[in-house]
């Protein structure tokens, strides 16, 4: 038994490209992508806090980024990713507790997740447009 045999050429379990795309599947992928995006987006939070701690000039540089078009697009994306991942987490709590697995329930959950995150993001940016623009 010293030599290891080459793995047998067995059929593998079906993977992503085999299945017809479904909303629950797409939302699972989006949950991971938003999580990975937030991982790097946290750098912006750290930058914001450090800029506030460093002083007026550093804070001005951050504000320059945050109010630029690139900055706004990035922060809009961060807002949506944060809210979507948060609501997606709540969806997973429901599933973790054993509820919401029915065909209609799970569809409703992912739709509510998507609609909720988009609505909340738009609402927050309306707040920004009303109070934040200078």
């Amino acid at each position, binding site marked *: 038994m010293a030599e290891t045999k080459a793995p047998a050429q067995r059929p593998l379990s079906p993977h992503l490209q085999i299945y017809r795309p479904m909303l629950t599947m797409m939302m699972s992928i989006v949950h*991971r992508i938003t*999580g*990975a995006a*937030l*991982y790097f987006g*946290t*750098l912006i*939070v*750290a930058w914001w*806090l*450090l800029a*506030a*701690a460093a*002083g*007026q000039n550093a*804070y*001005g540089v951050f504000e320059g980024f945050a109010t630029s078009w690139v900055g706004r697009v990035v922060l809009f994306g961060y807002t949506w990713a*944060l*809210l979507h991942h*948060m609501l997606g*987490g*709540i969806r*997973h*709590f429901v599933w*973790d507790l054993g509820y919401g697995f029915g065909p209609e329930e799970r569809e409703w959950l992912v739709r509510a997740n998507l609609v909720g995150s988009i609505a909340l993001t738009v609402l*927050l940016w309306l*707040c*920004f447009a009303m*109070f*934040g*623009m*200078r």
Partner: protein
Amino acid sequence: MTMRTPLARVRGFGSARSGTEHFWRQRLTAVANVPLTIAFVLIVVSLLGRNHAAAQQILGSPLVAIVMLLFIGSVTYHMRIGMQVIIEDYVHDEIRKLVLFMLNTFFTIAVALASAYAIFKLSFGV
């Protein structure tokens, strides 16, 4: 013939060298993240359009500073576990995986400590 139980043999042999602890901590930090994220969003909204002096004052006030510290702590821990799962899923080369695990730990701890340092500095005005 071994006297060890199957559970004892299985412990420490997953791809992450640990068992359900990660699953539990991932959920624990996820539960904490929900109210902390809502609080974080409200803090950011309250600072919209304010100047540096106001931001400094609000971020340095005890309640906001403590909430921000909890937010940063819970989020970076959650991030570290989440990214580790992503690495485990897609990286199969043993060395590369270990290097990425290390970079993941370094990155999340650096973000956590840099943010915490900023919050403490805002609070104590050093």
